[in-house]
């Protein structure tokens, strides 16, 4: 934990900054209570207002009761599964469907868990670790593009 903010800590000038303790204490700190809590509350109230306004402007959807014998309805996933559904398209045929639907996401989640052990470089800023940043940006771009492709497929498909 940080040394307490009250006066007793060692005067900073004498402190010899080494590779290990450079990230020990940030240059300037603010107390959590007044300042940071205010910022957080500001963002939270914005979100709350947005939720309340949206819940009247476009209410939570409730289509007609379920009918499992329909042939006219087109099921669509929620927006946050768009990229997943579009990604399935890249694994055709019965040999690859289970690969693309389950194996690839599990591998992605396992790699996500292992990120701190895959990128062990000392420096944290993204410009100082190009390999991790490039892969991070690639993943984000692929997800966004897949989402965009899914949107373009959904609005253009004769589903309406």
């Amino acid at each position: 934990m940080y040394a307490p903010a009250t006066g007793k800590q060692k005067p900073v000038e004498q402190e010899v900054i080494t590779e290990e303790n450079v990230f020990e204490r940030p240059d300037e700190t603010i107390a959590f209570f007044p300042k940071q809590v205010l910022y957080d509350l500001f963002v939270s109230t914005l979100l709350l207002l947005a939720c309340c306004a949206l819940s009247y402007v476009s209410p939570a959807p409730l289509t007609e009761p379920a009918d499992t014998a329909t042939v006219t309805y087109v099921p669509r996933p929620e927006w946050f599964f768009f990229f997943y559904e579009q990604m399935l398209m890249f694994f055709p045929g019965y040999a690859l469907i289970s690969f693309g639907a389950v194996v690839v996401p599990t591998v992605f989640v396992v790699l996500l868990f292992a990120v701190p052990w895959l990128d062990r470089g000392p420096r944290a800023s993204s410009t100082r670790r190009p390999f991790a940043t490039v892969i991070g940006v690639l993943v984000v771009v692929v997800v966004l593009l897949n989402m965009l492709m899914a949107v373009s497929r959904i609005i253009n498909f004769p589903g309406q």
Partner: protein
Amino acid sequence: MGAISKARSQAADAGKFVADWLEHRAGIVTMMEHFLYEPVPKRGAWIYTLGSATLFLITLQFLTGILLLFYYVPSTDHAWNSIYYIMNEAYFGTLIRGIHYWSANFLLAVIGLHMAQVFFSGGYKAPRELNWVVGVVLLLLVVIIAFTGYALRWDQDGVWATVVGMKIGSYSPFVGAYTIQFLMGGDTIGPATVSRFFAIHVWLLPAALAPFIGIHLYLLRRHGVFGDEMEYRERLAKLQERQRLEEYEQYEDDGEPYVGRRDRADRD
């Protein structure tokens, strides 16, 4: 002394008395002081609000979720009607369900941003690896809660999304058939599916979510907030300065003019 100033001093004494009484018994004041006045990085304060926004949205989900529980009935022939009742008959029903729905969407977006912020600012470096792992567990829990929650309204969207989701699940090698039979409560969609999804969405996963959020916050306070390298600009500058000085001394004694470290490799 006027009546007002007397009342004020009495109120102040009463307040002090209560605080001391509580402090002696529960040590509440020191704990609050310890938590509230913890030093946090200053420069990037606005970016770190993403984490607390996620926390706020999850609490919002817990609250509105519990309120919805007062009216929701998890059975195939009542689920839709109970939600119709919430939306049309219950006072402020549209608001409560609206908040639950919209803060779910915002929650997933904000979790994505929060994860990206931590990844690109390197917040998972030692000693904070565990916090990253707990974060990923939280992400998975939230996504599964979102998927199970979508089915509870038992309308066309909900049921058919579950059917497609189950079919995708059935493609997983070895365990596919068993997992979806467990989730559907049999080998076809029916009343058991609603009650299972209800149990998972309302209690099983949130009960798993709460302690992990606790661990996440505990680890956060244990190692302090790692914001971004911009928080350590001056300290990094001092470090590089000291390293450069050390390097100069090393060359002076062997008498050669100093050449950049990289080119030394090419020259010999």
